[in-house]
């Protein structure tokens, strides 16, 4: 299928925690199609973050194959994985992880600098995406001068400004109140529906799950439920 963005086949991952093996994922098969908005849900230790990290090339499975945007991740070295993440993926982290010495605009632009985008195009795309996310007025402020919600918006702006094939979000609402979480999710839904951005979010927040159109529940390293969310 040409519109499959992520394909995980029989992936397993075991961690050593204080010499005790912990099976984080067990023989998981999982696919994400273009334009989907998926929530990976489950209790702590269920394997949702591990699955997200393996899809993002931040972690490698002990067994099984992972393919993102037609590229098999298992065969790539660290530099090639870095390039793939840079060119094809966007990340939204729980703790925003903005660079404190750069302004909001510079935080959005720096990832395009890594890609080698020209200064004029960087400026125009950064302005557009900051406007789209409603933080253009804070463009010259540094992260320390922004609220949690504003920082998360800038983080989303940074993640989508490169027009990624896949947006991965790890507990994006963990540090936000309910109202700000809803604002963020409305924004993600708009990006998904109007711009066709494929989103996979690992979460245990019911509000995030309610916005995703497909809910994948994990428990003990296995997918126990994979359903469409009609209410979303």
């Amino acid at each position, binding site marked *: 299928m040409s519109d499959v963005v992520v394909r995980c086949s029989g992936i397993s991952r075991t961690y050593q925690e204080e010499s005790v093996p912990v099976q984080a994922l067990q023989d998981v098969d999982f696919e994400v199609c273009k334009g989907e908005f998926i929530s990976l849900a489950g209790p702590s230790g269920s394997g949702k973050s591990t699955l997200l990290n393996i899809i993002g090339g931040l*972690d490698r499975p002990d067994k099984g194959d992972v393919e993102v945007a037609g590229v098999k991740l298992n065969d790539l070295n660290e530099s090639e994985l*870095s*390039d793939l*993440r840079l*060119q094809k993926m966007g990340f939204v982290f729980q703790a925003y992880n903005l*660079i404190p010495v*750069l302004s909001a605009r510079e935080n959005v632009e720096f990832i395009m600098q*890594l890609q080698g985008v020209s200064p004029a195009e960087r400026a125009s795309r950064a302005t557009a995406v900051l406007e789209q996310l409603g933080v253009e007025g804070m463009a010259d402020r540094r992260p320390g001068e922004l609220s949690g919600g504003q920082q998360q918006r800038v983080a989303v702006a940074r993640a989508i400004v490169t027009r990624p094939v896949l947006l991965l979000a790890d507990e994006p609402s963990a540090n936000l109140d309910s109202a700000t979480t809803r604002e963020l999710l409305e924004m993600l839904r708009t990006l998904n529906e109007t711009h066709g951005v494929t989103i996979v979010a690992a979460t245990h927040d019911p509000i995030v799950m309610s916005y995703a159109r497909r809910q994948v529940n994990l428990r003990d390293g296995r997918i126990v439920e994979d359903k469409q969310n009609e209410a979303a």
Partner: protein
Amino acid sequence: MPFKLLLQLGWRNLFRHKRRNFMLLLAICVAVAGVVVMNSLIRGFQFDMQEAAVANLTGHVKMLAPGYLDDPNIEKSFTLVKDWQPHLPGVELEGWAPRIRIPAVIMSERETRGIQLVGIDPARENISFLDKVELAGDMLSDADDRRVVIGKELARQLETEVGRRLVIITQGIDGRNREAGFRIAGTFDADGKGLEKLFVFTGVTALQNLVDAEVITEVSIKVVSQLDESLAQQGLADSFLDLDVLSWQQLEPQAAAMFVFADSAIFIWFLVMMGALIFGLMNTLITAVMERIKEFGMLRAVGMRPRAVVVQVVVESTLIMLVGVVSGTLIGWLLVLWLSDGGIDLSAYAQGVELAGMRSVLMPRLLVEDLLLVSSLSLVFGILAALYPARRAVKINPLEALRR
């Protein structure tokens, strides 16, 4: 490689932990300024010693009769053709001086001393220390002047003074002693009592008359640029195959060895200072990397290549070093300027200073090549200091870093 971005991040990070980076910059400044000042003092000592060696009747190059150095006497002499001039193509000369220099005994009414009796043409002695000494009384008027100029210390030891007569005994060309009376024209106050006790000057023609031979024992040559020393030596050696043509390094091997040692001392001092500094810099960089472990994790996660992470840490280290080196060099330069105003008075240690062949006032000397060497090597050290922290940064697992 987005070098501009890394440069921007590096520069901004300089101001991230202002107090810590300020202390580090201060340490770099002090170390670099210390190296600059110390280098200038060692250079001052080095060139002082060299100038003293050259000025003490040696010159950059000297022609001597074979065997004179082992047994300096009038028999080891030579003659120059009338109106001889050194002809050295491509070499600019500061001056040259023919002399007779022979051992002699000098007597006053009360004391007797062994000395070096030197026959000179006073008009040509602009290349020796005689040109700079303080003189009580008169200098010799010309090469025919039959009076003597003696050192102030010798005058004190002989209990004599300007205008009084002295008797000098030396060997003539026939091997027999010659004895003559000389009136003291003046006494010189040299930078060191050794010179004052050793040398007694009279006109070269007058001394030739005393020894009954129109000969000289040496010709000293001083070049404008030291780079021409070997060219001058070779040129003279080619023209005077039957004479020894020696450089000041051959004539003053101790001073020459000290000159080379000073170069090493500069480098050793630099290594000690920078060696101490590099650990401070490394420690600070490791702290900076560990504090920003999450940031480095994020950078790796969003696609920054491992090599770019290394470059970022190196850029930050280089920037800190650059700012520190520029400030330190400036401070060092200002300190050297301040010290150059009158120099450092070492007269309290006059005896030791004289033994080392130095003057009693040490003038610091700042060489552009030293500044460039210190600056460039400091930056190299900055880069080297960054390699280990950079390795730590690149080994950060982005996943683990983001979990913190």
